[in-house]
């Protein structure tokens, strides 16, 4: 038991993203309202984005921008060696920019579809929609 706490604490980023993912998944499955489902889907995707960003983090590291290395101030190579451990990994952030865009686009499409469904069925509650369809 005593080494369970450090185990959880040390990998807290994983636990958080899993929890968020499950919350999102739960919302998608269990909630009745279409918008709530869509929000759940967004939470799901955000959890994964958080996961990626978190794996790039390093203890005591700073943002991945080399000082005075741009423009006229730096001609040719940088004057000192770069210690990789001082900078957090920028790649996951870059990847997640794309993923965020994808998530937003999906959100947009989903909401547009929800509007179409609302226009037709005049309700956003899934059980009522299914009743309407079965009645038709």
């Amino acid at each position, binding site marked *: 038991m005593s080494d369970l706490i450090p185990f959880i604490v040390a990998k807290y980023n994983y636990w958080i993203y899993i929890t968020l993912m499950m919350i999102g998944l739960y919302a*998608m499955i269990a909630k009745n309202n279409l918008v709530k489902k869509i929000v759940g889907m967004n939470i799901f*995707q955000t959890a*994964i984005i958080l996961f990626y960003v978190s794996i790039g983090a390093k203890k005591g590291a700073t943002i991945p921008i080399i000082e005075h290395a741009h423009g006229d101030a730096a001609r040719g190579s940088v004057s000192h060696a770069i210690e990789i451990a001082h900078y957090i990994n920028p790649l996951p952030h870059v990847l997640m920019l794309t993923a965020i865009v994808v998530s937003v686009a*999906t959100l947009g*499409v989903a909401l547009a579809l929800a509007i179409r*469904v609302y226009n037709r069925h005049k309700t956003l509650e899934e059980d009522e929609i299914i009743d309407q369809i079965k009645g038709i």
Partner: protein
Amino acid sequence: MSQHYPVLLVIVPLLSAFFISAAGWLNRRLCFPIAVAALSVAVFSSVGLLLRVLNENVVLYKLGGWSPPWGIVYSVDYLNGLVLVVVSVVALLNLVATQRSVEQEFSEKIGAFYTLYILFVTGLLGIVVTGDAFNLYVLLEIASLTGYGLIAMGEARAPLATLNYLYMGTIGASFYLLGIGYLYIVTGSLNMADISAILPSLYHSRTVLAAFIICMVGVWLKMAFFPLHAWLPNAYTYAPSAASSLIAPLMTKVMIYVMIRLMLTVFTPEFVFGTLTLSNSVVWLAVIAIVMGAVLALAQRNLKKMLAYIIVAEVGYMVGGAWLGNRAGMTGAILHIANDALMTLCVFLVVGNIVYKIKGYAFDDLKGLFRKMPFTMGAFVVGALSIIGVPPTCGFFSKWYLILGSIQAGHYGFMAALLFSSLVNVILFFRVIEIGYYEPVQDHEGHEAHAERVAEAPLSMLVPLLIVAAGLVVVGLYTGDIVEHVIEFAIPKGIV
């Protein structure tokens, strides 16, 4: 120019999508020609690429000149060379065949429809051509989102069906992304070839196992592998006919390609069949998928939904074939990617023709169709024979390899499922053929059948359909060449 084929495949359709969108505003009649031009370039490039691959084994294209693993690389080998040709040809044939149908259903929204169409094909081509795992995710989402748009343009129940597809599709793609994330943690690379070089020392780590399983589940969700198939029947049924005959043949097959790519290139057969002991269970899952697909198809009363459940069964064929772990099974799965794309295109084009003339696709609408639309129904019979698996159509030959693989692997359950599915397909298709053949009893004794009531679909819809139907037989006869010269080299030597 030929060294740019890999990128032309993706860039030309991508850019022309914008032109089509503009043309949708300015001059609607330009949309179709631009789309045809874009896809023709794609077909030309993919055929050129396949020919290059036959000579050079692998064609690598570094985007922006950046070498892997820092840059994104488009890598074309025998496996995706074949799939590229299939995807681009199917997309082009479908584009031409459904022109009239699109005009009929979407006269004001033609610009939007063709934009989404071309972007969808761009996404698929990108998925197949890329050698970078994250780039695959991006293109996967391009294809998925445009696919949702295409399906949602359909009839009344389409938006809801699309929404359900969207939920499951997003979960699937997100799982894939998650799996790639795990792989990135342990290997530090996103390039497929690079990952597969780094992974061998890590085969026994739980992270790699988790990555593999999560990626697989994500891909299975997107290919509608039973029981993760629930989105497919409604989505494909309520989509407009032009969209369903594009998406149905291609989307699930490209996801099968992704699965095979993950199994053969990224994770390598040593891991999948050596380190993991999942293959038997997965083949049994495939058996269940085949049986359930067949049984659920029997319960349907409209043609499109029946065909959608047949797709679920066909996915089971390919997943089972790939996971059998032997050369014959993998050959069957890869061959079936091409064959099933063609067969599905054939039958969905038939449905498109039927909907264009009869405006309905329930079984009751199909009465007497053999007399009204003989050529369309002739093509339907050829497609049906291919799905049943009758030589010399191509469907027989992929079944041959799949059954051979199951015999060699000793997995007789899979063979029984394949045979069961063939027999159920006979029933399914002949039920439809019966309805079309035995029209309502009228005074048919005593007068000859003449063309007075023939109301065939227009030529632009009929000719591509007949080309595809003929292609089913031609591809079947050329199976030996395809297997010997292409698929044989697509499978690593390690698999026996």
